[in-house]
Every structure is written in C-alpha cells, then in structure tokens.
C-alpha cells in the first residue's frame, strides 16, 4: 500500500505537489491534535497498566516494602495458597450457568416478540430496562427477594408446600441465584440483538421454504439459525467476556461466600489486591483471567469462522 501511495505521489506535477503537500501537513497536524486526548488516555490509563500488570506479576510487593523479583512464584502461589484453581472453577460454572440460559432465553423472547403491535412493543421495552439498572442496587433488591425468612421467593414456595432453601446462604444455591440476577439484567438487552438479526432475514426465504414443504422447525434450523450466526457469535462473545469478569453482584450479594462458594476470579483479585495488598499475586491472577478470556474468545471466534466459511461454500 505504501509503495502504491509513493508512486502516486511521484506522478503529480510540481505546483500541484506543493499544495498537496501543504494540505497533507495541515491534515496530519489536525489529526494528531484531534487524537491527542484519546492517545493520552489510552496510553496512560490502558496501555501502561496492561504492561505493568505483567511486570507486577513477577514481583512480591505490598506497596510498602521494596519490591522483590520472584519469577513465577506469584503464579504458583496463586494456585497453591490463594485458591486460583477453585476460583477458576467457580467462574467457569458461573459462566456456564449464565451464558447458555441467557442466550436461549434471549433468542426465545426475540422469536416471541418479533411481531408488530403496540402491546408487543411495550413488553419489549420493559425487558430492556434492566440493562440500565444499577447492578449494585439490583443486587440488594434480589438479596431481599431471596432472603430465606421473609423473602418473596420462599413465601411463594411455601404456598405449594415447599420450604425454600437459604439461597444466598447456601453454598449450593448462592451461585445460581447470582447467575439468575445477571440473566435477568442482560437477557432483554441480548434479545434486542436477536430481534435485529431476525428482522434482517428476508421474508421471501421463509415463503420459499414453506412452498418447498419445510415445517416450522425445519425453517428455524435451516434458515433462521444459520443467518443468525453472526448475531449469536456477538452475543456469546460479549456475554462470555462480561461473565468472566462478574464482580458487583457477587460482592454485594455474597461477598464470595458462603465459605468460598461464590469466590469468582474478580472477587479473588479484589481480596488479594485490596484486602491483603498482595500486588504481585493479584496481578498474576489478573493475567490468568486475561489469558482465560482471550483463549475463550479465540476459541469461539475460530469455531464461528469455520462454520461461517462452511456455510458459504
């Protein structure tokens, strides 16, 4: 590309070239002037911290002592003493409780609400409202609704003769309740992406298919799903990235407990970094989480790329 640009520039005549060059200089100055704030922001508050987190992960430091280089000890300690393995497991279970259910529900709701009319439009809007709702505030409301003694959920369960579990105080139920709160919050928002996807599918495809005698399930399988693949990819990737980083709801609803039942990676990073002031271990945990998220994203994207190529052949 640069070779092409160079030859193009070389072909221009003298006077024209002068004006052109002057214009290029002002344009360059303007561009860097416009970019200056974001270059500063991205550089100082994103790029430098990312480089530092790797550096910090190799030192032992509590911000008071002088830092010691310890090689990979922080990574080993994270697994040996801080329960990084357990936190990774809890985080993975949380993502698995969250993402498949959320995606299927979002798709189902989109399918249900993909029709005109004011009534449907109003309900659609109501489903999206939680997307803006402050997670910390919602976590408190859920804590109340799920509280074992007077909470709405257990009161309603008692009507049908079930004495409900202790929910957030139960090491079995705490994580599913947190997952439920997050599904509730983001399912409507994800539904919107599926709705947009569904509305982008030409109606003629379905008409042609039904003329060929394809049933509704057949149509869903061979038209809707393949054409929704890009949307599905987007929803899965953004959902997974967000879920691996869950913190607000966990911190407020359970603070990682009971015991360590809901200690997800972010909770562990918080505890190491800002309760124990083990900067090195917390950084190592951050790097681990970063790599996990990166790996999951890459696996998802390679899977979807392969399938999409196959689709186009």
């Amino acid at each position, binding site marked *: 590309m640069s070779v092409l640009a160079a030859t193009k520039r070389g072909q221009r005549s003298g006077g024209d070239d002068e004006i052109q060059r002057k214009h290029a200089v*002002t*344009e360059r100055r*303007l*561009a860097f002037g*416009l*970019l200056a*704030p*974001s*270059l*500063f*922001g*991205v550089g100082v*508050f*994103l790029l*430098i*911290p*990312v480089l530092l*987190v790797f550096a*910090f992960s190799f030192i032992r430091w509590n911000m008071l002592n002088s830092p010691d280089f310890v090689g990979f000890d922080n990574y080993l300690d994270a697994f040996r003493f801080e329960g990084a393995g357990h936190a990774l497991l809890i985080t993975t279970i949380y993502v698995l409780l969250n993402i498949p259910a959320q995606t299927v529900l979002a798709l189902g709701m989109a399918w*249900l609400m993909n029709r005109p009319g004011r009534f449907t439009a109003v*309900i659609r809007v109501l*489903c*999206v409202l*939680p*997307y*803006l*709702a*402050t*997670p*910390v*505030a919602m976590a*408190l409301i859920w804590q*109340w*609704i799920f509280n074992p003694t*007077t909470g*709405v959920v257990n*009161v309603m369960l008692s009507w049908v003769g079930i004495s409900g579990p202790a929910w957030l105080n139960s090491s079995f139920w705490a994580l599913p309740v947190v997952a439920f709160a997050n599904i*509730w919050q983001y399912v*409507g*928002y994800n539904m*919107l992406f599926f709705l*947009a996807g569904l509305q982008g599918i030409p109606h003629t495809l379905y008409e042609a298919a039904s003329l060929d005698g394809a049933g509704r399930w057949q149509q869903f399988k061979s038209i809707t799903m393949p054409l929704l693949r*890009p*949307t599905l990819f*987007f929803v899965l990737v953004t959902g997974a*990235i967000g879920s691996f*980083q869950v*913190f*607000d709801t966990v*911190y407020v609803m359970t603070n990682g407990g009971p015991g360590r039942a809901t200690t997800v990676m*972010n909770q562990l*990073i*918080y505890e190491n*970094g800002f309760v124990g002031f083990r*900067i090195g271990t917390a*950084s190592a945990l*951050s790097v681990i*989480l*970063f790599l996990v*998220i990166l790996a999951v994203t890459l696996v998802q994207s390679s899977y979807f790329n392969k399938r999409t190529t196959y689709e186009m052949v």
Partner: protein
Amino acid sequence: MPTTSAEARTAVYLRKIIYVLALLLIAAVFITPYLFAVLASFKPLGEIQSGHAWNLPRHFTFDNFTTIFSQYSFGTYLLNTAVVTIILTIGQVAFSLMGAYAFARLRFPGRDALFWGYLAMLMVPNVVTMIPLYVMMSKAGLINTYWVMILPYVFGTPYAIFLMRQYLLSIPGEVIEAARLDGCSEFTILRRVIVPMARPVIITATIIAIIFGWNNFLWPLISTDSAAVQPLTVGIANFNSSFAQQWNLVLAASLVALLPMVILFAVFQKHIVNSVNLTGASR
C-alpha cells in the same frame, strides 16, 4: 364447513390468549422486582418484615427516604455520582468523537496501525488494568478524589472511538468536500457538519457513558474510602454491609440509585432500543 371455521377461529383466539398471557408473564418477571422495592420503600421496617411484598403500604411513610438523606450521607453520594458521571460523559463523548473523526476522515501516517492498536485495547478486560491503575493513582496522590474516578475514562474509550468511526465512515465524503470548498475550517466542519449528522451515534455513546459512570462500582470501591467523594454504588454497598436487614433503608437507597436510570431510559427508550442496530452492526 361452518363448524370447522368456528373451530379454527377458536384455535386462533386461544393462541392469541396464550400469546398475551406469555407476554404478560414475561412483563411481570421484569417489573415485579422494582415494584416490590418501590412498595417496600414506603413502608416502615416492621411492615416489610411481617407483610407481603405485594401489599400496598398500610402506614405510608417517606421516613425511609428522609432518613437516608438526613442521617446518612446519601445526598453527598448522589452529588458525587452526578458530578463524576457528567464530567466523565462530556469528556468521553467529545474526545472520542474527535479521535473517531481523525480515524474516519483524515489521512496521516500510521493511521491504520494506530487504529489497530486501539482495537487491540478493546480486547483488554477492565479488571486487568485495576491493580496497576491503583498503584499509579496512589503514587500520584489521587486516591480518594474525584479525579481518580474521572481520569481513566474521560479521555475517550477505544469502544466509543470505534463505534463513532464506523458511523462517520458512512457519511458521504462529498458533504465534507463541499463544506471544505465553501471555505469552512476543519473545526467548523466538525462542529457544523459532522456533529449534526452523527447525532444518533453521539447519543448512543452518551448513553453508554452515562450508564457506565452511574453504575461503576469496582473502581470507585477500590480507589475511594471516604463518604465525601464516594459514589452512590459504593455508598449503598457499604450501608448494606453495616445495616444488613434494615430493608426499608436499603431498598430506599437502591431506588435512589435506580430512579435516574429509569428516567434516562424513559426519555431515550426508543433510541436505546434502536441503538442496538448501531452497536451490533459495527462489530
């Protein structure tokens, strides 16, 4: 023949009723949490503990709200959140738009490489930067100030820049050329031509920034420790851990945090629903 058509009509009718019921059930799932919280926030604690969540308040009271504002620092928390959110939003949107314009419409050396660099930064999860950011901010003596909550997000985000760049690319070049030929300076072009044409994406970026600023929790939790600067989210979380089970106050405080978001949603509801096409299409 008439019987089958009557049957068919009943079937259609029945399906319609089931459809409406299903939708109402979904609506109930999404509304009742707020509704219960609103009802509870006007009840004394005893009534919340003894009565059902769906009962209307028997002893209707504003005491919960007056208590959290007069005896606890919720007025300050609210102000802190508002100040941080407003400054953060204005800066983020303005600086992102500037950057996006440069990437979309100007030629300069290293443009593509730089843009790829920004895109790579998009991949970095928020948590990864938390620890170093805390160390940097504490070395700079900014811990426990408004600055610490504003600075990391006020200079524009890769996501907003990416989103706006994609949109600006769709503005026809002729429009900008014409303004240039009319003798408009680049700044005038940006203000008079680009900003009006990019309104939808600017509103989207603004809404995203407001939601982020208002709801942000982990970073303020780490970087502030006095009520004088703490935002609402941290305020209510701390309040909850020291006054657990005081549901009347906890729920009232939660609603104070939620209400502005509900208003934002009510005002921009159509735009938020449509903005998905914008964010989804530019992935």
